């Protein structure tokens, strides 16, 4: 499903990301674990096409995405990926329902007539059917992350990339959100790559990739 081979990316003067090899099979749920600054978020950005490698190969479902054009990457993200961020990244002017619909609207993968019923179903599954018309600012942090999860899954993606999804949550809420995310990814047969610096969170996933040492700083 996801494969990195000798991927290099310069991050700043004397700072370089390098991943010799990485592989995640389809349907796997893997934690990209490591301390802050080790390069795990950079790796996620490279996989999602938000960053381009200077060299090496990033292969997803057999396709080398470093060769894909900018607009091709837009379509690739929209069609195949769902994002869950640490800071939720919901769009403040829109309601809970609209936030979920927006994911499908931009991706344009799901037929328009299914946007609303599918969004309603996803929000039902994350337990937010009663907050459809609420704006993100009125939700608790746990509710916001649940909306983000619903938005990420509504588009029927092949791959979910989650960057510290529990980083802004208290332990109890984090636990609940993790349970929900893992359950949904299993039910939907979606590959999950989850970045975390928290060993406890990483241990909840069947697989872990240790990101320590991905970023190298040149010594002068």
């Amino acid at each position, binding site marked *: 499903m996801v494969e990195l081979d000798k991927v290099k990316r310069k991050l700043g003067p004397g700072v370089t990301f390098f991943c010799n090899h990485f592989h995640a099979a389809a349907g796997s749920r893997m934690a990209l674990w490591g301390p802050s600054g080790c390069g795990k*978020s950079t790796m996620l*950005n490279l996989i*999602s096409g*938000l*960053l381009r490698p200077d060299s090496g190969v990033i292969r997803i479902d057999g396709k080398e995405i470093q060769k894909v054009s*900018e*607009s091709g990457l*837009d*379509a690739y*993200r*929209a*069609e195949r990926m769902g*994002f869950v*961020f640490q*800071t939720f*990244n919901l*769009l*403040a*002017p*829109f309601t809970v329902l*609209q936030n979920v*619909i*927006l*994911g499908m*609207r*931009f*991706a*344009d993968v799901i037929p328009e007539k299914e*946007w609303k019923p599918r969004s309603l179903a996803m929000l039902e599954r994350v337990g937010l059917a009663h907050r459809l018309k609420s704006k993100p600012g009125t939700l608790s942090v746990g509710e916001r992350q649940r909306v983000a999860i619903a*938005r990420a899954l509504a588009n029927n993606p092949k791959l979910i990339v989650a960057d510290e999804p529990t980083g802004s949550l208290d332990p109890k809420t984090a636990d609940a959100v993790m349970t929900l995310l893992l359950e949904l990814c299993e039910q939907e047969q979606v590959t999950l790559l989850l970045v975390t610096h928290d060993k406890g969170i990483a241990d909840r996933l069947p697989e872990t990739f240790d990101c320590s040492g991905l970023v190298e700083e040149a010594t002068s």
Partner: protein
Amino acid sequence: MSLWHIAWSYLWNRKLTTALTVVSVALGVSLISAVLTLRDETQRRFEEEGQAFDIVVGAKGNPLQLVLSTVYFLDAPTGNMDFEIFETLKGHEDVVAAFPIGMGDSYGGYRIIGTTRDLMDFSYGERAPYALASGRYFEAPFEAVVGANVAQDTGLKMGDTFVGTHGLVNSASAEVHDDFPYTVVGILERSGSPNDRGIFCDLQSVWNAHDHGHGEEHGEEGHHHGEEITAALIKLASPALRAEFKDGVNRTSNAMAAVPIWEIQKLYEQLLGTAKLVLLAIGYLVVAISALSILIGLYMAILQRKRDLAIMRALGATRGEIFGAVIIEAFWVSLLGIVLGWFLGASVCAALNSYLVAQIGFHVPPVRLSADLVAAYSAVLLMGLLAGILPAWQAYRTNVARDLAEL
């Protein structure tokens, strides 16, 4: 969910800023709407007055002065001409109506106009500027019919008497014709025409008043002044005859003929045309400043919204969609500004209408979507869209990875 809806949601999310920007656009648009409406109406009214008579004949001098003094009661007359000339002109085959005008005295700053009774029945277009509000028309010498402004300013009422002073301006040293008091027998309805500022009487009254005073003073025969008039207002069988008739009078008589509408159009273009341009320029300047405020408002909003734009891009929005959404925001602000400006302009015109109708009888029509206004509104919309390009470009260049990483 369309881009229009998305753009609208972002505008709604910052209501106050959006409202202030819309109001600034609306102010410029309202100014343009009001100026164009007033310009059209002023020109129409001015030209309507000018069209009332085809030809004005008076003493030789400046044709514009002749027109202003006899049609608009605004300037000093060019002098006097023999009454015989009027009688000759009246008998001309192309003339359907001719009215003598004799001026020389005034009351309270308003000029006393001696003419014939049939002028009071004259109407043009849809207007009857000599319609009575009360009383009747003059039937004998020294009976006066006063305009609405005269009645209002001087307090003259039906049955009141007054005496004229020599000259057409209010002067304390002017000679007063004490022996020839006028009696008010009628008050004209307010028409918004120069007649609101006139005091009308039989021509014989003017002659008599001047026979008395000046005949003795100059030791001349009284009837000498009685045979002179200030001007003649002439209606021809067709406006097409104006040039020929005017040339004929100028060539064959000792008087000067002028076509009021031609003189007025020249004056309008020279004087009011410039004023109109200045007001329009101010209107467009306000709109240009408004466009700048659209630009600044949107640019600041885009800076604050970089993360949202990055999220949309991560969700699959293309650069074109992001660009389009910001341009649509500029469109919404401009459109709302135009609509609000139209209402503001209409309100200003309505307020001006109630004030000016009461004061001078000048009717200001409601703001209509004339070709000029549509062109002006289109220009405002275009300016708004142009103002949106820079912020839209800024949004277009969103760096998704960097903007998502920046907290």
